């Protein structure tokens, strides 16, 4: 032992010493690492051993009577008939009550923003009750009375331009009520393609409700208790994630040879058939429909396309778009569909601008690109918006000027004023775009004001390009800002995401004298931006005048500029001339040259031209609010038009009441807000934020690292001292 110690103190050879020192160090390092690991593992184990019976699970806030917890998935059946550019959509929804008490169900129905809702059917077993149109207040009273009396009843109201609510009262326990709503809309035509958007879900809205006379007045105040507010339904949508499913079946009679037919959003199978007579579901046997066709022309044997969803049921988390593309050159430059009801003829005139291949861009642009970075854009939407923004930047040339504005709760600009498009500025803008993060609310008003107020340089074409999902509520106020501040500028809107508020986008573009483009997925960005910028660069048709019969009532009143690839759609009504079909001429300027086109009216295959006309008239009347038309006058004119044409409007509602009561008056009635499926790709339903900082972890790891450092520091010199005793 003594010998061993002597060797240790005096005789340890250098190599053994080094070896030993090395091993001591290894042991210390491994030890410290194990310590860190053990500490972490203990914490992880603690986090994981949480017992699940403490209340884990889905949190649902219930009303006192517990009416919220049984929001049953809704099954929806959509049948679409298209003839030319007119489409009639029938939405049948089965409201099932899985509970044990009587239930009132409320569902927000997203519809296209130009939808003309003119029919409500309530089906109970074999019986069908047809909905009647009434002034809104009266309809609500009828519904409330029926509800109180225990009768099954249904009410369809327009809560904002593209949102309708369906309320169904007194669904008996274990039973269901089928509600069918029908509406008309026109197909969009853009860059050689017709398309029809079938909304399935909605984007939650941000912001204060419109002015009392605008939106708040639309929500019922006359019922014993308000049925539902838009906020609460939005909130319901945000809270639960119901698996609503739909089947979609469409019959398309395009009236012209097609190159392709297809659907976007959900996969649909297309089968082609020969028209055997009229297999179109003549959905609405409108009163006096024998006369509705005016002169009946035998329709030529046309091709029919039948589209069905590939899956038997598709989730209602994204809109479906049915699109068809006519063969080049066969799409008529001008088409006029007519319908005569009583002593009035209604016409829908569609003008496709002439080909603009020879036109070239001359004027340099000053482009203000505005991007929405609010919380509702989080997820796939902001990725799309950034891609679109970069695409737009890439299309500018050195002759142009530009600026980038982002807005959420606040608005901030990249440059204080628009700058020339130089490589440095371009690079700076790209970096800026890369750094954008979606967060906070949507204060779009300030952004629009800021964009409109950007100092303008003379000699430039001022274009504002807005990229947003349009999740806003105070639309009227925003339109006012645009209408008043626009000047010579043009405002273009780009809708982002799976369910943008396309009403707002389209209207904003209308007041901004620009166009609206919708980008549904990141894959579409380049193509859609190409199409938009092709438009931005030229007006295809301007100063349009149409030669109508006398005493015509025209919507829109003022015919807007027509951009390349987009049609001009005008609806008109005039005293019927049964012996003489419509023959009209449109004049205008195309690429600076006079342009003229004559068209003969053809009776429409689907009834509803009058309904579309009335819908546009109502829209025009409501738009006139921005110009300061008194609310009372608007209301009166809208009610008159809507009642005459059986249309749901902000001031009229459809109501259906079953005569026989089912619920004993004493039995309670629960309310059931049926939440919409949240749009795909959005994050707004992910409600719980992350609420831990890594601070404790950092402190522990930091302390352990310092421990390790001291171990190394102490371990080394200790050995060296041993090795060289003095």
């Amino acid at each position, binding site marked *: 032992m003594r010998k061993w110690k002597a060797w240790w103190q005096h005789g340890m050879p250098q190599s053994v010493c080094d070896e030993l020192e090395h091993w001591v160090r290894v042991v210390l390092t491994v030890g410290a690492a194990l310590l860190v690991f053990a500490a972490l593992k203990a914490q992880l184990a603690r986090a994981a051993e949480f017992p699940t019976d403490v209340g884990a699970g889905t*949190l649902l806030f219930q009303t006192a009577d517990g009416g919220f917890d049984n929001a049953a998935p809704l099954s929806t059946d959509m049948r679409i008939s298209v003839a030319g550019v007119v489409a009639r959509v029938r939405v049948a929804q089965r409201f099932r009550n899985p509970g044990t008490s009587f239930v009132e169900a409320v569902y927000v129905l997203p519809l296209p923003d130009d939808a003309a809702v003119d029919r409500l059917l309530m089906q109970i077993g074999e019986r069908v009750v047809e909905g009647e149109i009434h002034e809104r207040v009266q309809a609500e009273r009828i519904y409330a009375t029926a509800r109180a009396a225990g009768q099954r009843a249904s009410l369809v109201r327009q809560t904002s331009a593209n949102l309708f609510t369906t309320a169904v009262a007194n669904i008996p326990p274990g039973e269901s009520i089928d509600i069918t709503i029908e509406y008309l809309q026109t197909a969009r035509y853009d860059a050689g393609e017709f398309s029809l958007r079938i909304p399935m879900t909605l984007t939650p809205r941000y912001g204060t409700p419109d002015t009392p006379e605008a939106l708040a007045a639309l929500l019922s105040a006359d019922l014993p208790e308000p049925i539902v507010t838009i906020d609460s339904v939005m*909130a*319901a949508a945000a809270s639960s994630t119901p698996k609503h499913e739909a089947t979609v079946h469409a019959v398309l009679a395009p009236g012209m040879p097609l190159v392709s037919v297809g659907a976007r959003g959900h996969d649909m199978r297309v089968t082609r058939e020969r028209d055997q007579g009229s297999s179109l579901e003549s959905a609405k046997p409108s009163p006096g429909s024998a006369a509705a066709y005016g002169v009946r022309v035998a329709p030529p044997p046309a091709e029919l396309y039948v589209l069905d969803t590939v899956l038997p049921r598709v989730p209602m988390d994204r809109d479906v778009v049915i699109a068809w593309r006519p063969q080049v050159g066969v799409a008529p430059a001008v088409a006029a569909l007519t319908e005569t009801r009583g002593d009035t003829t209604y016409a829908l005139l569609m003008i496709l601008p002439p080909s603009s291949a020879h036109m070239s861009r001359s004027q340099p642009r000053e482009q203000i690109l505005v991007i929405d970075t609010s919380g509702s854009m989080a997820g796939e939407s902001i990725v799309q918006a950034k891609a679109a923004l970069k695409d737009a930047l890439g299309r500018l040339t050195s002759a142009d000027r530009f600026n980038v504005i982002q807005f*959420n709760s606040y608005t901030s600009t990249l440059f204080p004023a628009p700058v020339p498009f130089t490589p440095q500025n371009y690079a700076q803008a790209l970096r800026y775009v890369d750094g954008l993060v979606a967060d*906070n609310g949507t204060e779009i008003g300030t952004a629009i004001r800021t964009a409109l107020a950007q100092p303008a340089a003379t000699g430039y074409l001022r274009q504002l390009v807005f990229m947003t999902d349009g999740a806003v509520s105070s639309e009227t106020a925003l339109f006012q800002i645009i209408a008043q501040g626009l000047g010579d500028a043009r405002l273009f809107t780009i809708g982002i995401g799976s369910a943008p508020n396309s009403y707002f986008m389209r209207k904003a573009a209308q007041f901004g004298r620009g166009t609206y483009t919708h980008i549904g997925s990141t894959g579409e960005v380049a193509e859609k931006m190409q199409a938009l910028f092709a438009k931005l660069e030229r007006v295809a048709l301007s100063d349009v005048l149409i030669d109508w019969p006398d005493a015509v009532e025209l919507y829109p009143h003022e015919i807007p500029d027509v951009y390349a690839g987009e049609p001009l759609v005008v609806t008109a009504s005039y005293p019927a001339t049964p012996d003489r079909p419509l023959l009209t001429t449109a004049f205008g300027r195309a690429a600076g040259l006079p342009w003229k086109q004559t068209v003969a009216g053809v009776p429409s295959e689907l009834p509803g031209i009058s309904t579309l006309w009335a819908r546009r008239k109502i829209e025009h009347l409501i738009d006139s609010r921005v110009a300061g038309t008194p609310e009372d006058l608007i209301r009166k004119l809208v009610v008159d038009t809507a009642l005459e044409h059986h249309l749901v409007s902000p001031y009229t509602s459809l109501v259906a009441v079953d005569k026989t009561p089912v619920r004993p008056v004493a039995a309670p009635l629960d309310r059931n807000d049926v939440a919409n499926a949240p749009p795909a790709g959005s994050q707004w339903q992910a*409600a719980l934020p992350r609420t831990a900082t*890594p601070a404790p972890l950092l402190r522990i790891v930091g302390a352990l690292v*310092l421990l390790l450092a001291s171990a190394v520091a102490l371990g080394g010199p200790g050995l060296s001292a041993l090795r060289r005793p003095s």
Partner: protein
Amino acid sequence: MKRPLRGDMPLAITLPLHYDLAIRTRQRRWRRIAIGILVLLGATLLLAGFWMPAKAELAQHLLDRAWSDTAASGGGAAARPWPWADTWPVARLTLPGARKPLNVLAGASGRNLAFAPALMDGSAAPGAHGVTVIAGHRDTHFRALAELAVGDVFALERPDGAVYQYAVTGLDVVDSERTEIRLDADESIVVLVTCWPFEAVTVGGKWRYLVTAHLVSTAGPAPARTTSF
């Protein structure tokens, strides 16, 4: 003292003395660098670990000023706590036993939560019908939630001076991946959200601790608005 030379260690004999020294000097230098790096790393981590709670504390002081400015305008003009801020205090939360109230910011983003508890976008305003969701970090502002019990009363004050007292009615631990808070209600409900378990060290866990409370009394000038922030 000179090291004895040994026959079985030829290396030590044949190599010059300064070679041995050079190796040791180099080893010492490497060790010093390693120690330096470790100390720096450890210190940085520690500093960051202490900076976060310090920032959370400091921000509350800046927010106090913004709050009094906002309150001075009757709640009409939202004052920003620092010039570049894109958020502002929307409420003040006084938990039982707290020395001073916590300022609550608008928008429960990760960045806002570093400064203060935050009101979730889209949730109801304090006192209004609906569910007011306020989130906070478990290791800073909302550490005190662990001590709350059913029946405890806390206060929420709005910039317009209205003060609402809420009584705790429920304490739940939920899986955030499977839970979403329903935001509508026929009464005024507050849900305080923080991470769970409180002592956990790891970040990004899925459990959340929810304190649900119902309005019990109202004081102050303004009636409740129903709009959300």
